[in-house]
């Protein structure tokens, strides 16, 4: 699987945890209420947060409040269907880190994703 791949959402839907962990870019899998369902190894390495500490929590308010603004969180909330890539700055372990985000959502499916690639 590839960060920019067109049909990546469908593939992620059926991928198991092990498959997500084998990817080179970060993957945050959420339900439609922003609750984290899966958090792959690449993302764990970037953020320093373990999968266990993150799963079950609200991504925008409890895990990564740095995204809780109109550039990221509100885009998920305002759109039923979303596939957008932006450059952003994460604050992993208090360090500003430039990343590329791919925001994926489609209300007809059960999950939404955020793909993260360090720049």
């Amino acid at each position, binding site marked *: 699987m590839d960060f920019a791949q067109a049909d990546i959402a469908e593939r992620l839907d059926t991928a198991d945890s092990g498959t997500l962990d084998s990817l080179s870019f970060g993957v945050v899998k959420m339900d439609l209420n922003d609750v984290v369902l899966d958090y792959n190894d690449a993302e764990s390495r970037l953020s320093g947060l373990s999968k266990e500490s993150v799963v079950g929590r609200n991504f925008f308010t409890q895990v990564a*409040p*740095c995204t809780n*603004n109109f550039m990221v969180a509100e885009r998920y909330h305002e759109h039923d269907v979303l596939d957008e890539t932006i450059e952003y*700055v994460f*604050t992993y372990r208090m360090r500003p880190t430039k990343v590329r985000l791919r925001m994926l959502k489609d209300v007809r499916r059960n999950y939404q994703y955020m793909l993260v690639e360090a720049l």
Partner: protein
Amino acid sequence: MQYRSDDVEKLLQFLYLAPLALLELQRDGEIVMMNAFAAQYLMPISGGRMTNFFDVLRPHAPEIVDTIAAFRPSSGSVLNNRRISIAAPGREGAPLYYSLTVEKLEDNCLMVALTDVTEAVEQDARIKQAIEQEAVQRGKAELAASVLHDIGNAITGIGTTVARLLGGEAWYEETALRRLEDYLRDNLTGLEDVLGAGKADALLTYLGEIRNALHDRAAELEKDYARLAQITTHISELLSLQRTYADESQTYSSSMQCDLVQVLEDAISMQAAGLEKRSVVVQRRYPQKAVRIFGDRTKLVRVFVNLLRNACESFDRNARQTARRDQAENTIEIGVSILTGPRAQVVISDNGSGFEPERSDQLFDSASSSKSSGGGIGLAVCRRIVAAHNGTIELTSEGPGQGARAVVELPFKATETTDHIDHNHQEA
């Protein structure tokens, strides 16, 4: 001190998730560390470049960047809760407000704390605007009411004059002329001797004509007076109607509540000068607990101010009318009690001039001010305001010199009734 690794992890999370933006900068503004809220607040205004804090801030608040850069001491407080407004994308021109604190820790280390105070600022602005609007409206209404009141007083003066003219006796000149005619007729023969026959008759006819003409003019004038009286009454009615609108232009909402005792105390302090001038002793009998009533505080204060004013003014009349005062002191008693219903009752009694008991109702007519120039709102308006609160107001006296007693009853907030009723039973 040694930290275990999960302690460090906790500490990191604590700083990372703290609900305010925290940043550590180098002296040139380069960001060394920042937490999640810092990114949340600053990313949208940074245009995506988030490596240097000064670069992020410069387009929005260049003077702040200059202040920080110009700070010479090697440590100390650079900025303390400085408010900055920032034109933010996605907010339709409404600016964001951040409060910024900068502390210099070392030569090459600045700590920045930033909070979003937009909501507080907007709320302040809303409240300020509402207060201003209220004041303007109230001012307009009060001005209108007082102008109308003054005109009303002038019209009342005209009305009284017209009434006196209408009630006047028939013209004295007409009767005098008739007497003269009778006298001449009785002495007609003697008169003919002097004037010559026919001339005396002609004189009588002439006098009769003058008398008739006078009579007609008197009748005409009386008709004009009647019309004038009608017109003044009409104008008075129009004025009092307009005053109702002016007074009630701020609509009374049944959801408004106020504390009756506070309302009374406000009225007393507003009338303080008048009370002091006449050395009035004010005695209060209030329930121990607050008495919450439904009503518009400002309007009710005006009602009680007028009642207190009237009482004060009655002391002046008393002083004029009786050379020697029986009562040593001017006293006003203010009592508050709770009646079943439940209603709150305010009794304001004075030992002033009083009035004939049968006048008690007519004092509430809009034209019954006994003063030539009134500055108050008048009992008529008091009654309208109280009526708008589903309340009643009465003013009674046992007679001139016997003082007066004003009783105002207003609906009482039911939830706290029991306590008050018990309390009053105990007192009784």
